[in-house]
């Protein structure tokens, strides 16, 4: 049986009080609850404070470029569908720099779990606006406040019919862990957008700010009802709904490739006779 200790305990480069600590804890809990051994899991991350998270646990890790975690994860999953592939990065990385890949990943419905640490600000580069910063949010780079409307990852995902869309809050570790566990179990693209404070650079959306607003969806809520989900997805203000907002059972991308019915693309030999027939076709 796998235990929390198997996932290790490492010193981090995060600020004291950062929401990342709670998310790291929730991730480990979810992995253990999913019965996954470290070597069965591949974390792919980009660049940012959140993207460092996979370095602080035991697993296979590909810490790639800013914004590009989803394509790497997609390639790895297609190469070896047996891997549990988890993308972990921040709002700037996944929704900003990697925005096009985010949309494409939802369209493909590749079986990858996306953990988006969403603190509505750039931490590693010291406090510029992120795609999810609220309008009017003032930073050194946006002295007159953010002029653009924020990107709503939940609404976009639901609108596109993503397979699994959830939102959590780092202040509720067990709840987040439960969402991550469900996301991992889901076959297809799963998004867990995790709201978290940035103690150094976001003085507006603080721990208390989120805590006051984040409200778990009632038990009666039906996440398979797309229209209800669209409504919930657009809620942002005095009440911020958290929980599984939408889910469906679209077929996963990799399951539709006939070549993958024989398993991973890894370690296969070239079928010389088949290739010789292809060569013959040029004669």
């Amino acid at each position: 049986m796998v235990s929390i200790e198997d996932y290790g305990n490492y010193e981090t480069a995060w600020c004291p009080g950062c929401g990342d600590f709670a998310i790291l804890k929730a991730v480990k809990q979810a992995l253990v609850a999913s019965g996954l051994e470290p070597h069965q899991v591949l974390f792919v991350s980009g660049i940012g404070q959140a993207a460092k998270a996979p370095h602080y646990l035991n697993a296979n890790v590909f810490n790639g470029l800013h914004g590009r975690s989803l394509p790497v994860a997609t390639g790895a999953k297609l190469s070896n569908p047996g891997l549990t592939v988890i993308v972990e990065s921040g709002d700037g990385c996944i929704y900003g720099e990697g925005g096009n890949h985010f949309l494409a990943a939802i369209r493909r419905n590749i079986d990858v779990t996306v953990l988006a640490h969403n603190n509505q600000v750039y931490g590693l580069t010291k406090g510029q606006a992120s795609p999810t910063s609220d309008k009017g949010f003032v930073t050194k780079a946006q002295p007159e406040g953010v002029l653009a409307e924020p990107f709503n990852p939940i609404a976009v995902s639901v609108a596109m019919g993503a397979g699994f869309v959830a939102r959590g809050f780092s202040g509720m570790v067990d709840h987040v862990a439960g969402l991550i566990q469900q996301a991992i179990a889901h076959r297809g693209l799963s998004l867990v957008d995790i709201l978290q404070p940035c103690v150094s650079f976001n003085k507006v959306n603080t721990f208390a700010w989120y805590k006051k607003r984040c409200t778990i969806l009632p038990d009666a809520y039906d996440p398979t009802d797309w229209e209800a989900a669209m409504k919930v997805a657009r809620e942002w203000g005095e009440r911020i709904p958290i929980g599984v907002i939408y889910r469906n059972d679209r077929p996963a991308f990799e399951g539709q490739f006939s070549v993958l019915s024989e398993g991973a693309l890894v370690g296969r030999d070239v079928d010389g006779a088949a290739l010789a027939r292809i060569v013959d076709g040029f004669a």
Partner: protein
Amino acid sequence: MRPNAFNILIGGEAGQGLVTVGQLLSKSLVRSGYYLVVTQDYQSRIRGGHNTFSIRVSPEQIVAPQESVDLLVALNPESVTLHREQVAPEGLIVLDESFGIACDPCLNVPFKELSGRRSANIAALGVVSSLLGLDRELVARTMDEFFGKKDPKTVEQNRDALTKSFQWCEGQPSPVQKLSRVENPPRRLMMNGNEAIALGALSAGVRFCSFYPMTPSTSIALNLASRAQQMGLIVEQGEDEIAVINMAIGASFAGAPSMVSTSGGGFALMAEGVSLAAMTETPLVVVVAQRPGPATGLPTRTEQADLGFVLHAGHGEFPRAIFAPGTVEECFHLTRRAFELAERFQGPMFLLTDQFLADSFRAVMPFDVEQLAAVHAGAEVGDVSGSYRRHAITENGVSPRLLPGMSDHLVVTDSDEHTEDGHITEDLSVRNQMVQKRLRKRERLLREVVPPKADGDEKSDILLVSWGSSRGATYEAASHLRSNARRVATLHFSQVWPLVPEQFVGVLRGAGEVVCVEGNATGQFAQLVYRETGFPIEKRVLRYDGLPITPEFILRELKQ
């Protein structure tokens, strides 16, 4: 140029079935035992405009295209106006009698009568095949195979048009000499550069190819896609080139030998990914099929102007190899080589071709694919003792590569500078060790460089240096000069990086005059040779109008 070569140029609008005629004629010629060099010139549009498909054919081995035309096949009036000046004195223009164009010598064909409305291109195929003396049944079989999947009625209509055209042609006087017959034609393949790259990749064991459509590279991925199920690989069209290269890196990291194919503009978007493959030491084959830039440039034409770009693409310092095939056979073999090196040296390896070679059909000897070895990704788990470190410092710079999820070992890598176990670090002594480790691979890469090929007189008056697809034209220009009693040598590079000066500096120094022939405006390869050897190549034959370098072009430039 060569008395034994015959140049056919088929001209028409996009959408007229020009490429179909060209390919059917080419295939029939290859099956009849001839060598050929095809040049395709097309505009960036799907209908209309003016396109040409030229086939230079010979019973002897030929390697270059030719400018002067022996047989002009005009599928539209514009083709006559645009190309009649190119027609050789003893050449012929084949055109539709309905054009009402008077020219001499020309063969006015009643295409409508021979083929009905729909298969004018098939009638043209029949007329040309008959003029060249091809066997009607062989051409008909080739055509049937091509249209085989269409409905039987189309097949019958086409056969009918072909027969009528052959018969009509037999009664016509023609100044064109039939091709000398090849007895017992050997079995050869008709293949262009992109097809050979796809086949080379399949034989090397490619399992993953991602791409974003971009002329002239697209058909590499399409060729792989059409064989994906049969050969067990995935071909994925990415949302952009950035996704494409990152996907391939992810697939390769997880154990699938991977490649991407693109052209200059798409490669520009991939540059950061190239650097990522190097830093994470992930095997990757990158094919860049060049077209004229800057920016969108001439999207469907040819150029060799991305050498400097591919050589330097990607921030930071890391080793790489760049192959530049000069023939279709080299496209096959050097693709295999790129896969092998990518796996052994764990990093990005490049193949640099161009539109001319990508689209140029040739007759090639069949590859004995069943005898060729494929690459195998990753090291054996048994090779690893104790705790696994993906980026372990080794004497030759190559660390044992395990694949994630294939053992209990954890495989960790990072685009940040990392420790031996793959984790992010800012320990600057580790940094130095890692830089040195990565660069140590270069020493072994150098030992495995494909040497340039020197031909001709050792003590030459003139030495023509070429790289990539300019090889054929350079060889033929040299042989022409030799026939004029000049001492001429050639030096061809099919690997343009890294360069090993000891392999060729002697040849450069021994020549009277050295001329570098390349398809760009600044002499990029000449500059690279100077940088690496200190040997200046002042005289250059440079072409950058979007057309392939021809022997005639080289000879004209040399006269100036």
